[in-house]
């Protein structure tokens, strides 16, 4: 029987050998000494949707292949060889320039001669089509995310001529947030000629088509080879509007285990590693050949939300007691290995032009006061509550352990509950828990956006379920200030922020440094508010 099987097997193998003998070998022994410059990047598994509107997507990949009307410029940071995005100024990208009307309500963009990877020149129709798609496609989240700045593109966007588009907004205070949004992944401008040629009855916005044909954007790179969830190869475009990128090829490899990623760059087998734990990042910072960037005001922050729709945190005194029971210093040194900063209790970024911190309440670890507040609230013997964290989020778990220990003398018996990542997502929006720890990283850093992010009426992101008319009134008043970088604006935000901090619906624990390490071979890393790497800004040190 064995012999009978053996014959067809041998034939099959021989045939396969014949076929392969004709095939060209794809790799050469001296691939590394080729003319082209290449960079290897290791990423955690963060999904790989190749169009923003198709649900889970990889913002970094999109940033490499797509482009926006404006962008936030890079400036040198305090650290050698590291750049950071200036989150409060906006310069032209696909738009050569823009101007604002005197009442601050109409923004007019003059488009450049950018050419897409598919070979079509940018027109006003591309902008209109892109926003029609963002608000029309079933899986697009733009309507929620862009509200209240953009609610109806059909009425807000006007094509003036082939190269000019204007956008009208409802109140002047929303202007900076509009520019900020137009500079982020939410507002990529697509090649409408190419996409419209590929729509079908099932796929009216060519979303499914775009998932498999990602090279229709105006960005600096093309994806030439990829396997979802595994790897992708980017090649520089020589007709990108801002000039050919310095690095010819970027290879991205998905490495799910954080420890494996850290070991690899430590051994020098990768150029850039993303998604490092703070401990690994702190560890790698001591390696001479690596740069671990530290920026002035990182936008990733850890937030403890106290859900105000049920006991015990429906009681303001209990919330205030909790704000005195958190060991901020211990968390920063133990969990984040000092790779986190705390600039007061406020949530508005303190480097915002016009910012005013006068009179803001400060949260400090003070178990005595916390106990007194709890007693006043009717809990002389303290109380017990459940703190929910995502099992996928190691730092929040570690923070929860620190809080548990430190809150005990303050009268809080904290029970830690971990739930799977997917469940955490659902539960936090349903507001069913007592308290939860989450990590926030808003792309837009304007005060109005940050203040509104976790407090919106009926918003899923309002995890504390805290809706306060007095706060909303103060927020609306600040949106009426035309010059959003003036002291007048700063004073208006201060009113809203003071109210928020007095009410304690959530407590921002610390701003966390980016978990990234870069080989000294690579120059030009720039921190961005979307925490992705801009491949086009990288270069190779000689």
């Amino acid at each position, binding site marked *: 029987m064995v012999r009978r099987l053996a014959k067809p097997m041998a034939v099959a193998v021989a045939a396969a050998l014949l076929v392969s003998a004709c095939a060209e*070998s794809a790799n050469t022994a001296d*691939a590394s000494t080729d003319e082209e410059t290449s960079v290897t990047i290791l990423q955690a598994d963060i999904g790989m*949707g190749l169009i923003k509107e198709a649900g*889970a997507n990889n913002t970094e990949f999109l940033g490499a292949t797509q482009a926006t009307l404006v962008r936030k410029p890079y400036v040198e940071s305090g650290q050698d060889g590291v750049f950071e995005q200036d989150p409060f100024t906006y310069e032209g990208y696909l738009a050569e320039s823009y101007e604002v009307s005197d009442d601050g309500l109409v923004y007019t963009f003059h488009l450049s001669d950018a050419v897409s990877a598919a070979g079509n020149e940018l027109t006003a129709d591309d902008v209109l089509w892109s926003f029609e798609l963002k608000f029309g496609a079933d899986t697009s989240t733009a309507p929620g995310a862009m509200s209240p700045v953009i609610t109806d593109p059909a009425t807000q966007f006007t094509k003036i001529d082939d190269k000019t588009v204007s956008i009208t907004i409802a109140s002047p205070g929303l202007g900076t947030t509009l520019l900020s949004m137009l500079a982020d992944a939410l507002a990529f401008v697509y090649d409408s000629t190419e996409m419209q040629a590929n729509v079908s009855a099932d796929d009216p916005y060519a*979303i499914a088509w775009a998932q498999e044909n990602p090279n229709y954007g105006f960005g600096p790179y093309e994806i030439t080879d990829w396997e*979802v969830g595994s790897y992708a190869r980017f090649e520089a475009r020589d007709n990108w509007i801002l000039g050919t990128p310095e690095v010819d090829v970027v290879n991205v490899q998905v490495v799910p*285990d954080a420890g494996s990623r850290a070991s690899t760059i430590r*051994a020098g087998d990768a150029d850039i590693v993303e998604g490092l734990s703070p401990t690994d990042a702190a560890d790698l910072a001591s390696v001479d050949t690596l740069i671990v960037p530290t920026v002035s005001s990182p936008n990733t922050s850890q937030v403890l939300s106290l859900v105000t729709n049920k006991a015990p945190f429906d009681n303001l005194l209990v919330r205030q007691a909790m704000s005195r029971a958190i060991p901020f210093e211990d968390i920063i040194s133990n969990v984040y290995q000092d790779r986190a900063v705390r600039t007061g209790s406020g949530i508005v970024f303190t480097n915002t032009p016009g910012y005013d911190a006068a009179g803001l309440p400060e949260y400090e670890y003070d178990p005595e006061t916390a106990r007194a507040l709890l007693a006043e609230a009717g809990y002389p013997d303290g109380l017990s509550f459940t703190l929910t964290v995502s099992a996928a989020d190691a730092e929040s778990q570690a923070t929860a352990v620190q809080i548990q220990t430190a809150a005990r003398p303050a009268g809080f018996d904290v029970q830690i509950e971990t739930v799977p990542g*997917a469940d955490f*997502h659902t539960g936090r929006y349903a507001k069913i828990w007592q308290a939860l720890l989450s990590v926030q990283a808003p792309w837009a850093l304007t005060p109005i956006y940050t203040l509104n992010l976790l407090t919106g009426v009926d918003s899923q992101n309002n995890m504390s379920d805290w809706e306060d008319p007095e706060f909303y009134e103060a927020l609306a008043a600040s949106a009426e200030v035309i010059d959003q970088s003036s002291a007048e604006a700063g004073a208006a935000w201060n009113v809203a922020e003071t109210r928020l901090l007095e009410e304690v619906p959530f407590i921002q624990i610390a701003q966390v440094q980016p978990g990234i390490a870069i080989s000294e071979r690579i120059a030009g890393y720039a921190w961005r508010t979307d925490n992705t790497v801009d491949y086009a800004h990288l270069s190779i040190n000689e």
Partner: protein
Amino acid sequence: MIARLWRSQRWWIQRVALLPVHLFLFAIAVFFLVRLIPGDPVLIIAGSDDLTADQYERIEVLLGLSGSLWHQLMVFLGRVVTLDLGRSLIDGQDVQEQIAWRLPATIEIALIAMVIAIAVTLLLCIFAMLHPHNPVARFAAFYARSAGAIPDFVLGVAGILVFYTVLGWAAAPTGRYDAGLRPAPRTTGFPFLDALLSSDTVLLSSMLAHLWLPVLVLVVGSAPTIMKVLQRSIEHAVDDEATLFRIASGVPRHVVIVSVLRRASPTMVTMCGQLFGFLLGGAVIIEQLFAIPGMGQYAVQAVGRADFLALQAFLLTVAACVLVVFLIVDLVNMTLDPRRRPGVMVEGNA
């Protein structure tokens, strides 16, 4: 004539014919098992952005999550029967395409590890049988008893620490080959075999450097379990009267060994089947740790994202593979030992 042929061949025809039936029943069980995963895929798609109620409904319909559970089940079974597993809820990728390239990749590693593990343990067991007092034999016995004492991922982490970080013998745990290399042209779908078949020596040597450590971890992790079973069945075979008779009659040593192995072979074949299932499971952790894209990675991703369709497809595919292996095991065993064929016992007891 046909009746006689049917009676003589029924044992395997029945067994083969039942396979799709089993799979279909299994599909129903999988459907319900997968619905146990908490988490709302609609919200996961939305990320942290707000959805209007109307939009929520539209996405729900799009994902096939609208309608009653019964309706969803019928849709799912319809898909299974037509062998169309659909598109992933979360990343929009075609599930079949994903499995088509991931499955061979995982099977390949599992098979390589299985062959090596069996060869090594077999040699160790024979050695231990011949020289029971040798330290190596004692170590083998101890090792067999330590089955399950050290979790797979510990072996993996320790392996990376020792062989990659400290000694530098293994390549980085970043996948099947160096980042930047192009995969071999797809001939068979099995990445390593394809690399072997192509004349691409760069790719092949990179693959060898990347894969030997994960395979070693799988072998070391699964060897004690096999050794335990193998030692037992070899002891049984040695104690068998037929063997004792052979030994007493002074036949050459290799004849005794061959006879012992032949007696132990049904257990070994059965064990291969189980080992295969075990290695597919072990691959989940190994793939995670060594960043080898395959079925295991797919499953972990799917659970993390509440990706029902992907997980269903994963479970069905793995079950189908293991069932086919079990079927082969049964058929081989029935061929080796006709007493195991169904119906034989019934007649004996009647």
